[in-house]
């Protein structure tokens, strides 16, 4: 039995705070859950917060990249917040650029950015 990552709805945004290191199964489960949730709530924005994560491996990074592209396809803008310096270095060294994604320092700034992007 693995833990599911809670996805919270706030107006037309979805908030996800990842609190522990993801294993492969949880990451795939999260991908599924998020896409369903977007479909259910027809959310326009998604904020994923990584503040408490200090390690990411290549598989998780790929899954995240996929989730972001998929969410985009479903019409939701994604902002990633709180990436730690060590994680940023790992991602760059793995050659994962997450080029199309917006980033912000913390949840607050991430939400601001999203609101601006959505034009409210």
């Amino acid at each position: 039995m693995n833990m599911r990552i809670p996805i919270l709805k706030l107006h037309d945004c979805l908030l996800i705070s990842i609190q522990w290191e993801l294993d492969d199964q949880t990451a795939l489960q999260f991908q599924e859950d998020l896409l369903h949730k977007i479909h259910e709530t027809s959310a326009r924005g998604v904020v994923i917060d990584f503040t408490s994560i200090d390690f990411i491996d290549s598989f998780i990074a790929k899954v995240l990249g996929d989730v972001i592209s998929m969410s985009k396809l479903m019409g939701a803008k994604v902002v990633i917040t709180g990436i730690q310096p060590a994680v940023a270095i790992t991602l760059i060294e793995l050659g994962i650029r997450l080029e199309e994604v917006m980033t912000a320092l913390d949840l607050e700034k991430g939400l601001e950015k999203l609101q601006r992007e959505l034009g409210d």
Partner: protein
Amino acid sequence: MRKKIFQYVQSHSDEILREWIELMRGEADERAIQAMSDHMFVKTSSEFVQLVMSNFSDSEQKFNERAIDFSEKIVRLGWPLTMITEGLRVFGKIVERGMQQTGAIDQYSYIDFTTEINNWMFPMYRTITEAYTTSWERTISLQKIALQELSAPLIPVFDKISVMPLVGTIDTERARQIMENLLEGVVNHRAEVVLIDITGVPVVDTMVAHHIIQAAEAVRLVGAKCTIVGIRPEIAQTIVNLGINLEDVTTTSTMKKGVEQALAATSRQIVEVQE
């Protein structure tokens, strides 16, 4: 035989010293002589000769200590190592010639003499070179630490805007440190825009550009914006000639423009005070 050499060296020490200084002056590197005054040269030289002579009388440990002291001094004065080894060779030569002239050695005892003087000289070569390189290495490692401290400071200049001035060549180790300082600093200062100033970087080749691009991307991942400022004309030329793609990174020529853009990006501007 050893006793004979020792006696000769001790009784003729003044003569040897004089001759040695004369010969060394002829042989020595221009650079080493220019670096110090005549007085200093004579003083250091006599110290050196005394050191060599003390190898006869002192115990090995004591000699080692003296050699290390002396070589540290020499490194500070900037004498090249070649001069020291040359000095040892010249010293041996002087002793050999002197002893020949006084008839202390003839062609029968010559082999004996050479063996003895070699036995005496070689450990000395080794000790001095070793002491020399040790103090050298220490100097280098000290400088390396000093350099690292100066390497990559991140300065918060305004709210949300930080600057990292880079001076000097960037190698892989330094690039790593730059990246770490940059990201830690961005998170700690809560910066939204970081300006990396490369005015002081003399050469931007593919490797340096690669490091800078990586740093810029990493900054974007932690949620800030990175601008490269201080692109000099020749750097712009090399970047384009090398086919480096800096399209994804914002760049400007001067820090001034960079700061203006950064302020604009954080929706602020500098206005003159109306009096």
